[in-house]
Every structure is written in C-alpha cells, then in structure tokens.
C-alpha cells in the first residue's frame, strides 16, 4: 500500500484523477477507515491523506448562511459559537458524537461520505437542507445532501471527486437534535432525529420539519407526520402510524426494528407535547 501526502488541493485532485479509482481511498480523520482496514475489509493500493489540506478547513459566514470546510472536525464544530447559535441541532449532534478523542479526528465530510444511516450529523444537515460542494480536477458542482446519500455506504460521489465544503442556508425558527444510544458515550445511534419549528405570534405552530436517522437506508423526513400536524392532526394516538409511513427500520446488533419504530414514535410524540402540540383526544 502506498500512502500519498499531496501538497495542496490542486495536487490532491491531480493525484485523484490519475490513480485508479478502484484502488484508491481518501483518508481524512480515519475514524471510519482505520477500523475497516484493521478488520481486513479494505486493502487499497493507494491511500491519499488529505487531513492537512488547508483549502478544506474552517467555518465561514456567507451572505446566505455558512460554509463549513469538509475537513472541519466534529470537535471544532462543537467549539463554534456560530454553530451553537445558528444551527443548534447540528451543534447538539456534535456534543453527542463518540468521545472527545474521536471528535478531535473525525471530520464532517467523513461523516457524510461514510453514508451510515446512523451518522449523527446527518439528520441535522438534512433538516437545514445542506448542500455539498464537490470538486474534481476539472470540475466542481453543488448538490443537495439528500441527492448525495442514496443508501447505506452509497453516495453519488464520482471518481476523482472530493467533498470540499458543506453549505448551510440561513434558517428560521428553533431546532434541536436527539440521540438514543445504548450508553452515554461512544455509542452508535439506535435512533436519532432532528426537529425544527416556528411559531406565530400567538404561539401557533407555523412550520415543522423532522428528520430521523437509523430507521431507514438513509435519513428520512417525517413528512406524513409534519404535514398532518400542520394540517391540524393533534391526536397523539394517530401519530405513530404517520411516523411509520416514512421509516423502514431493520433489526441489528443494537436493537430490533420494532423497538426502533416504537421508541422513535414515543420520543417524538413526547417532544412535540413538550412544545405544546398534541393531545390525547
């Protein structure tokens, strides 16, 4: 195996365009790749270490929102006032991500490219309608995150492409994130969700969006539920079935599909009730 250490983004994209895509892997924080390598699940001929590329670092405010460099670590997001104030759901997700050692290495682009249904930053990024800036040697394009992630471990990333940054538009209303893991740190989500809402002056709910993770091949919007609620469906007993319309959980080592279905419904119903939405009849 050959480890490449490109000098800058240009150099990196050139390398990527020249090396055979099937035998080449991009290494960022390595927190997903190294365990896979250790287990013998990947054996690339070429490893391109991008961790030091300055072009992919930093959080910048733009006219329409913010742009987060792909190599920004989870810990850096956790320490950003901008993220905490403007994107609290994303900020919460970084607080509940792994443990501090992993957060110091793990990158946001890595979490996205890894395309795990349980990736903890993903429900918030969906909620904020994130876009990705992808670059390759001769081109660059912008795509919606929803279009980029197509299944567990599957993305529409083209050979030679790199996630340069994540673009978040300005958002209105309040938002938050919740994670259920089997312990208080270093736990992969059994279910997670992010929720955003706005109220009118009189307190009436004017806007509501909910995304959920680890309950389908990719992150899902709980559209059936939110549309019904905005349309006046306040009976909590009806919510569970609405939630189940948009999810398709599986059994795995951490929990059964049945538990995931049930617990997601219970958590979201409880959450909405705390916001003053819903009643038992």
């Amino acid at each position: 195996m050959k480890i490449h250490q490109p000098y800058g983004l240009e150099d990196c994209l050139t390398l990527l365009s020249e090396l055979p895509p099937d035998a080449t892997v991009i290494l960022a924080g390595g927190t997903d790749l190294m365990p896979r390598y250790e287990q013998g699940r990947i054996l690339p001929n070429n490893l391109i270490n991008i961790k030091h590329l300055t072009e992919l670092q930093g959080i910048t405010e733009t006219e329409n929102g913010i742009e987060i460099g792909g190599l920004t670590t989870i810990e850096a997001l956790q320490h950003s006032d901008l993220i905490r104030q403007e994107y609290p759901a994303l900020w919460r997700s970084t607080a509940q991500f792994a443990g501090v050692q992993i957060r110091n290495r793990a990158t946001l682009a890595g979490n996205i490219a890894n395309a795990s249904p349980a990736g903890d930053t993903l429900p918030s990024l969906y909620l904020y309608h994130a876009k990705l800036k992808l670059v390759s040697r001769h081109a660059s394009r912008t795509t919606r995150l929803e279009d980029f992630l197509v299944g567990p471990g599957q993305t529409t990333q083209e050979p030679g492409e790199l996630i340069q940054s994540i673009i978040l538009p300005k958002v209105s209303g309040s938002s938050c994130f919740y994670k259920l893991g089997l312990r208080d740190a270093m736990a992969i989500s059994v279910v997670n969700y992010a929720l955003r809402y706005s109220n009118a002056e009189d307190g009436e709910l004017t806007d509501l969006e909910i995304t959920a993770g680890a309950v389908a091949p990719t992150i899902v919007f709980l559209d059936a539920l939110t549309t019904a609620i905005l349309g006046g469906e306040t009976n909590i007993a009806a919510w569970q079935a609405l939630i189940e319309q948009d999810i398709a959980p599986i059994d795995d080592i951490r929990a059964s599909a049945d538990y995931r279905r049930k617990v997601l419904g219970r958590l979201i119903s409880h959450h909405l009730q705390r916001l003053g939405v819903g009643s038992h009849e």
Partner: protein
Amino acid sequence: MSEKFHHIGKSLPRVDAPGKVSGLTRFITDMHFDSMVFAYPVVSPIAFGALDGVDISPARKMPGFLGAWFAGDIPGENQVGVILPDQPLFAQDKLRFVGDAIGIVAAETEVDAISAARSVKIDTTPREPILSINASKMATGKKIHENNIACEHRLERGDIQAGFADADVVVEADLVTPYQEHFYLEPQGCIVVPQGDAFTVYGSIQCVFYVQKAIAKVLGISFSKVRVIQTPTGGAFGGKEDIPSEMCARAAVAAWHLQRPVKMIYRRRDDVQWTSKRHPFQMHYKVGVSKTGKLLSADIILEENAGAYATLSSVVSYRATMQAMGPYAIPNIQVHSTSYYTNLPPTGAFRGFGSPQATFGHERMMDILADRLGMDPVEFRLKNILKPGQETQTGHALSTSVGAEATLLKSANAAEWQTDARPMVSKDGRYREALGVSVCHYGNCLGAAGWSMDGAGVKIQINRDGSIAVAFGLIEMGQGALTVVTQMTAEALGVNAERISILPTDTSQVPDSGPSVASRNIVMTGNAIRNAVEKLKPILSTAAAEAMECAPENVAFQNDQVVNTKSGNALSISALCEYLYVTNRPMDALGWWHVPALTYDAQTGRGEAYFTYSYATHIARVQVDTLTGQVRVQKVWAAHDVGKIINPAGLAGQVQGGVVQGAGWAIYENFGHDNAGRITTPNLSTYLLPTAADSVDVQAFWIEDPEPLGPWGAKGIGEPAIIPTAAAIANAVSRIVGQPMNQIPLTPERVLVAFEDKVVHE
C-alpha cells in the same frame, strides 16, 4: 487501635503506578528475544463437526513461513483440561467451537504468522451446533463429549418438603444471567524461550503454576524444566486463569520444534472469540417462608452453559451451589447444579466465579418474597441474615467475622432506605427512580473443593545493604497485589516500605502456590509473610542483641530501626543486615500458609464449604427512562465487611471498579452469537462496556469484623466488589417497572417490553 500499625490500614500509593503511568513498564508485547519468531493458532471455522483434514500448502507459500504443527506433532500428551481431561491441545477428530485450536503456525513476523495460520485449508463435516443449555439438555444422540454434562454438584440439608409444608408463602421463579467477556485491556500473550531441553515462559498470566504443569505435560518433560515468569499483566479478571495454559502450551510446541523463542499475542477479535467468559446461568428457585418472614425451605436448580470444554466449570458450579441462598439462615435447602457442554467458547473464571449469578438468583428471590409478604425488602433480609453462631446454608456454624448484618444496616442508613416502594416520578412523568438492595457472601479462597491446592508461599530475602526482596507465588494483575504485599512485609518486619522490592512472580522462586484467584492474595500471601517473618525474626533479634550487646528480649524493631528498649540505643537496619552477612547467618526464609482442614461431605454438600466469608451489601439508586426503557445507575452505596483494611485507597478502587463492572453486566454488556455459533460482538463497538461517561457514583463503607485466620484479621475483597451490584440494579428496576425483572442485561428494549406488559396487565 490502628495506632498499633505503621503500614496496615494506610494508603501506600501503588508501587507499580510510576512505571505504568510513565510508560516504562514493559508488557509482553514490548519484549523481544534474539532470533524470536511469531506463532498463531489454526482454528476451527465451524462450531461442531468432524475434522477431516488440513492442507498447509497455502501457508507454505507465505513469506517467512517456518512450520505448522498439529496433534500428531505434540511431543507429550495432547491434553490441557484444567480439571477434567476433556480438552485436547490440538483437536484431532472432533471440532467443538468456532476457535477450537487445531494446530499452530510459526513465521518470521507477526503479520506473516497470522496470515499463514489463516491460509491453512481445513476440511470439515459440519453438524448442527448445540448453542444453548436447553438444546444441550435435549440433544439426544448428539454429544459434544461422552455426554453433554460437564459436571454436577448437590447440596442437601434438612427436609425441604417438610419446610414447604410449614411455609405460608411459597414462590417460584426462573432467572437468567448472561455471558460476560473480561475485556482486559491487554490481550492474551506469551513468549516461550527454549534453552536445550528446558523452557522459560514469559506471559500475561494469572496462574504461573498451571502454565508450568500444562507445558510439562504437553512436552513430556518434568516441571523442573519449565520456568514460568509472569510479565506485568494488563488486567485479567479471571480470564487469564485457564487460557494461558493452553496458549503457552501451543507456543511451546512451536518452540520445541524450532528451538527458537516463540511469541504469540492474540488479536482482540480472536481473543474475544476464542477465550473464556463468565458462565451464563439459568436458574429455578422455589423458596418457602413463614408469614412472619422466616426463610424455611429452598429448592434450587442451577444450570450453566459450560461451552465446549469444562475448564473451570466444576469449581464455578461448586461455588454457586455452596452460596446459592446467600448469607441467610435457612434450615432446609436443596441445590442441584449442572454444567452443560455447548458448541460455544468455553466459559471459565470471571470475577465472582459463579457468585454474581447465584446472588442474582437469591437476591431477586428475596425481593419477590418480600413483595409477596408485603414486607420491606431490607426488613425481610434483616429477619434472616446470618449472625455469629448461626449456620450457613451448608451447615457451617460461623462464630466470628460475620459482618453481613452490619453491611446491610450501614448501606441502608447511608442510602436513607425508604420502605415506600413507589418509585419517584419526574415532573414530566418521563423518568422514574427507585432504590434496590442486594446482599452477598463470598467464601474466601478455594474452599473444600480446591483445598488440596489452597496453600501459598513467599520468599523473603534480606540483602547486605538492608534492602529486602520478596518473591510471592501469586500475582499482580492490576488489583494492587504488589502494594499490599509490600505493606504487609513492611508491617511484619517493622521496616520502611521503601526497603522492599517485589520480584516478578516466577515458578522457580517459591513452591506451587496455586492460582491467583478466589480473592486469595491478601489472605494467603499475608499469612505466608507472617510465617516467613516468624522464622526470620529470631535470627534478626539474636544478631541485633549480639551487635548491640543486650538481651534479645530487649530488641525491638521500630520505625525502620532496631532499638535496645532498655538503653534506648539504636542500630540501623542496614547495619544489622551487614552484621548478619559477616556473621554468616541465614538471610532468607520461605513462608507458607495453607487453609486449615475443612470438614465437608461432597455427597451432601454439607459442612465447611469455605473457612470464612466476606460480606457485602449494595444499594443502587436507579433511574429508568419510561419513553425508551433506558436504565441509568445514579449511585451505589456499597458496604463491605473485609475483616481488616490493608490499603484503604486500593480497597476503594476495587469496589468502584467492581460496581462499574457489575453495572456493565446488568445493563450494557450483551454478548451475542449467530446460529452458526460465531460471536457477533467481538469488539468494543458491538460489546458495550460502560465508559467513563456511564460510570457510577459509588459511596463505599467498610466494616472491619476481624477474621482470626486472616492476616491482621483481613479477608478478600477482589470479587465481593462485583457480586451484589447486578441484583441491586435489577431489584430497583423491578420496583420501577412494577414487574419482576428476572433476566439481565436490562437493555432498553427488554425494559420497555416489561413496561408495556405491565400496562397490558393493568
């Protein structure tokens, strides 16, 4: 009273801490010998079936390949069973679990050895594996060994039928406890160094004398040709009791053939798949009480999953049988314990050794009974708890050091135990909290079943410069043995701790001291130190009297000096040691202690099962999230009767660690396998240990009810620290849910289902 002691009862900082903190301690993985090679086992890919043949030609083509050896290449006996001779070093015809060793491959590098071992082609005829206690029991015609029972134990005392006839309330319940994987930080590892016809073995080993015996047998050489030296060991918890024997013996076969040092370290994934774990138990308890709350009769069936080989099952089963009804007086009892073979990794020793399982059984029963009687769980326990002069369930009248009641009262007071069983509910109704209590006893050392090897030694050697070297037959595995051995030696000799160095445990230093298990170290080594010092003291006193020209009666060892109590003159210890040397006096002594004879009848299980017991009560405050079923332990009040405290800081560390490990077993750790017998939780992302974020606030209390046979009155603590925790948590969760939680781990899913059942029943 503690004024009398200079070292006992003081928190001497851990003597092994500087090396471990600075990184200077050299573990087995750091060690290297000239011309050393690496080995790795070839293992069964199937859980059950016939071994038809192996083809090593792919391994031969691998770089650095040096050789592969199988059953036919073993110079001595192909047998490594610790107690029963049921385990071949290399499987010959029958394969009994995924990971059953078939042979060993050696290569020049570690990576090459692992690749070569994995490349060996293994031809098998698989059979459907037996993967549970019930499947093993039912299997007709399908036998893992000659039959599927690894061992049985019985206890019969009084007349249980008469007891049940007198009882006002009789309750029956089934209880289930799971596997537990040790997950010691340092995986299993060893180096075997051949020197002609003799072998020196280094390794992360709990029982050096077991390893010596195993290698001698497998190579067909005498014990004297095998020297085993323990290297600093990064945790064991029982997991390095049986496994190092087979592991080192396998490496020794390669070393015998190659005549080069052979190193073998298991990869974590393999370590989890191949090595021993805590026995899963399924238990049926039937217990009768009078309406005044007196225990009258118990009929208990214990069934254990022994895995593919018996290893230590018979002694685990013995302990669980002897302690099945806990530290309570009960006139009529019958216990029948059976260990069943299955096609899963062998289960063996794990901190508590059958006691956490039995305690889960009796302590859940005590709560279920209290509930049925409408009695407070603490009050009900107090009515039955063992007091001095009363007999244990095996009919052993204990007259001293019975601190069970004191631990219960202490922790109940500290936790402000509330008789009101209703859980506290958070404002929004989401969280509920309650207390749960659990009491245990733990027979110190090996008991009647292991009495013949329940002796241990120490060698104290005094050097001319006044430094003192101590060799002991048990080991440090992280529990703090080196520190307490230093303290006890310093106390017995009346010298400063700085003079004392503890040597690595080495079979060539002291006679066979048995295994480093069963919370033995303080009791065994402490008594052996006192015995050695009894031999040395007269020599030292006579020499000192001679040097100071006074009568030996007037010589006293105080504050690291020898003092003439009449004149007040003093001599330094170094000067005395030099004087010993120049006057040609003996400068060393071997100390020995053996557990006194026990009167015990193996047929009925009646008698002195153990010479004494440690006692403990844990009270846990537990919170359950009613939305998700998640369980969090907020606090544990832990009271332990340890006889006499040797090192308070070390003791607190043991109890904190024990509680967290117990909470792990009760809530998080969910060891799994698939239908083919392959482990599905072979790493830390699937086998969930509690992390620092999940650790428990522990408040510990000490009862010092001295044991006359213990050194300075001390009893063991290593295992009692974990034993009551799981049952205390399950008792609290049962109160919260309003349903008996008789199976652990208490995963969110299991707890949520119980909540829903409760709602349906209401």
